[in-house]
């Protein structure tokens, strides 16, 4: 049986890879060691000083800033319907675009506390499954 470890990430280098034995999955952003700017996704160079950014795991928890539900013609094998939104991450304060849990659409609202999950979700455009990160409500959040 195909396990999560066998499925490639939708884009390499944007989230920590399974197995997640001890830790939660995290998005991989960038930080400038000189001027401490945070980025997601990570650009090659810092726009403040043109220094090279370093990879940094970002907080796995955040709050929904906005969301929507796409009800027609889902691309990339995503479920119909599926949801996307912007999440304000703890610590870095970055506002990141992300998929939201398609199984939790009824619960979604602005201000909801969420945490990151990585699962096989959708495909690569050619039918091969891909790991995608998405945020899901924190129980009791």
């Amino acid at each position, binding site marked *: 049986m195909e396990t999560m470890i066998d499925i490639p990430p*939708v*884009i390499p280098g*944007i989230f920590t890879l399974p197995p997640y034995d001890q830790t939660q999955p995290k998005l991989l952003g960038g930080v400038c060691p000189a001027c401490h700017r*945070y*980025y*997601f*996704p990570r650009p090659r160079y810092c726009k403040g000083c043109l220094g090279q950014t370093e990879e940094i795991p970002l907080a796995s928890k955040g709050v929904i*800033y*906005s*969301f*929507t*539900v*796409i*009800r*027609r*013609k*889902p*691309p*990339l094998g*995503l479920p119909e319907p*599926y949801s*996307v*939104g*912007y999440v*304000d991450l703890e610590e870095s*304060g*970055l*506002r990141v*675009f*992300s*998929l939201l849990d398609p199984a939790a659409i009824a619960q979604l609202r*602005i201000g909801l506390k969420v945490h990151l999950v990585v699962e096989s979700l*959708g495909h690569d*455009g050619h039918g091969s499954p891909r790991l*995608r*990160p998405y945020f899901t409500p924190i129980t009791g959040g």
Partner: protein
Amino acid sequence: MPSAAVIGIGMIPFGKHPDRSIVDMGAEAVFLALKDAGIRPAQVDACFFASGFAARLFGDITIGQNVFWELGINKVPVVNVENACTSGSTAFYLAYNMVAAGQADMVLVAGAEKLYVPELGLINSGENELDTQLGLVASAGFALRATRHMTEFGTTPQQLAQVAVKNRRHGQLNRLAQFREPITVEEVLASPMIVEPLTRLQCCPNADGAAAVIVCSPSIARKLSRAVNVEAAILCTGSYENPQDLTHWETDYRACGLAYDKAGIGPEDLDIVECHDAFTISEILHYEAMGLCPKGEGGKLVERGETALGGRIPVNVSGGLLSRGHPLGATGVAQIIEIVTQLRTEAGPRQVKGAKVGLAHCMGGDKAADTKSCTIIVLSV
């Protein structure tokens, strides 16, 4: 003193043209613009051709040369332009700057697109973009803004729908628009939900189409009675700062501000506006960026009828993208054509009386919660 003028316009009806190629449609639009200006192909010093999706959908490149070849335009510089929804207005921006710099006296701008193709699906900002791979379709970017604007400012679904109703009412009066049947707020809200809260009738339809304009130097324009002055042509790219406030695009405000400064006018001086109403929420956000109303009050502005034909500042009297459809490369040019037509007082039943100053606004692409491209063209007579 304006640096350039528009002296010719040409546009074919936007809609379904299954039997016509991009080149065929583009060539007709150019022909119409040449005839309108009363100039010969040999008088053209340079050409810009815009298409957003042609390379991707049909595998053709350097299509502009093929379009202009149909008219016998050769030897002169030809540049092909892609800048998402602003491809056409970006081509205009380049033509304007070429004339303003004194590098050419007569420059052709054409845009053409063919989007009625099978299996197009919801369009995005690039297949390999991270956001696209995470499920961002163009409509969702606007829906996320609508959700936020409704939450912060109390903008209602009815106000969103009123944008579609108004623009369709305008589109009824434009024989070049694709959709000309009137619609009601109830029909807009009852149409299928595409991306919450945007229903189908709040999303601009696809279209095949082409449009062309001719930009020339003031010395030539001075001799022509139907010339329209270009007071400003601005192109801005996003700041991509994080976090972005999704109740507006800072880039939108920045582009409008630069255009007003360049033209030496303010929003109160505008008589007519064409803006990028790709979705109903877009028009409301653009009202605010253009300074037609205070921030957060765009929904109320359309509700009061101030942006309808006969209102204080009519917006998208052509019917907008919502009625014309959105053939990407042609859209930015079509917006300029509407303003030129109005300033020439040749708009027939949809003429805005006494229109002297008009603004064409276009926006395209999505990156890092910002827009990739925003153009503002200010025209006057």
